[in-house]
């Protein structure tokens, strides 16, 4: 650059206001952070292999633990049942009475309601 141009260049320029930076850069849009799959530090195959290995270890540990447990004796108790017999029914033709032994079995139809409830 010639002397004259250098001399021109040395002149002090008017500076923009300090607020200009804020005015300009505040307009910069906030973009959502994109997670680049290509830029992963842990490759997919390694992550998948680790997941499979961990699942295998978990399954084996669970199996070993179950084998160490004593086998509990299971008894299946029959469900208690309540049989309710209607005797001395006011209804005609149902005069059967269980409260007394009887050889007499009246003719007719015996109506009985059976209420069954399972025990806990």
């Amino acid at each position: 650059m010639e002397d004259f141009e250098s001399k021109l260049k040395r002149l002090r320029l008017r500076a923009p206001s300090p607020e200009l930076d804020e005015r300009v850069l505040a307009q910069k849009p906030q973009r959502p952070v994109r997670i680049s799959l290509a830029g992963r530090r842990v490759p997919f195959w390694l992550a998948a292999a680790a997941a499979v290995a961990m699942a295998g270890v978990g399954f084996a540990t669970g199996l070993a633990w179950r084998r160490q447990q004593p086998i509990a004796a299971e008894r299946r108790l029959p469900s208690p049942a309540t049989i309710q017999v209607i005797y001395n029914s006011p209804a005609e033709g149902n005069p059967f009475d269980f409260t007394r032994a009887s050889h007499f079995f009246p003719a007719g139809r015996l109506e009985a309601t059976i209420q069954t409830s399972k025990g806990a």
Partner: protein
Amino acid sequence: MQADDGALEQIYRRHRQQLFTCALAVTRCPDRAEDAIQEAFYRLFRSNSRARQMKAYVFRTVRNAAIDQLRRNPAPAEELSEFIFDPGPGPDHAAAENEFQRQVTAALTTLSEDERETIVQHIYGDLTFREIAKIRDAPLGTVTAWYQRGIKKLRERLEE
């Protein structure tokens, strides 16, 4: 794909002063020059273009915004007597330099718009002639001619 915001911010931070000076040379008003820069970067941050010569593209957008500012507000703003130069030189500034600055300002106003803007862009905007040609959408030879002619006139006026 959006313009690279990081690259734009970098260009802004690196050429902040030059962008302002070039915009000021068009608007002749500091407030309008800053408005033009803000408007230009609003457009740039949202543009989809990926210019190969990003710096020239940014300067061109700022220049267009400065011209738009003038078109939108045709009423002449208070014209700066100091043009693009510092209005309040520091106390260490020699009187001779202050006088030179005043003479340069006066001489610049006598040049054509093209000559004056080319000198500002090249000397104070740190732009190459090729970049100026791209910004102004003019042939390289024309830009060089504007500059040479302008500098010659400037020198002659200052020697008078």
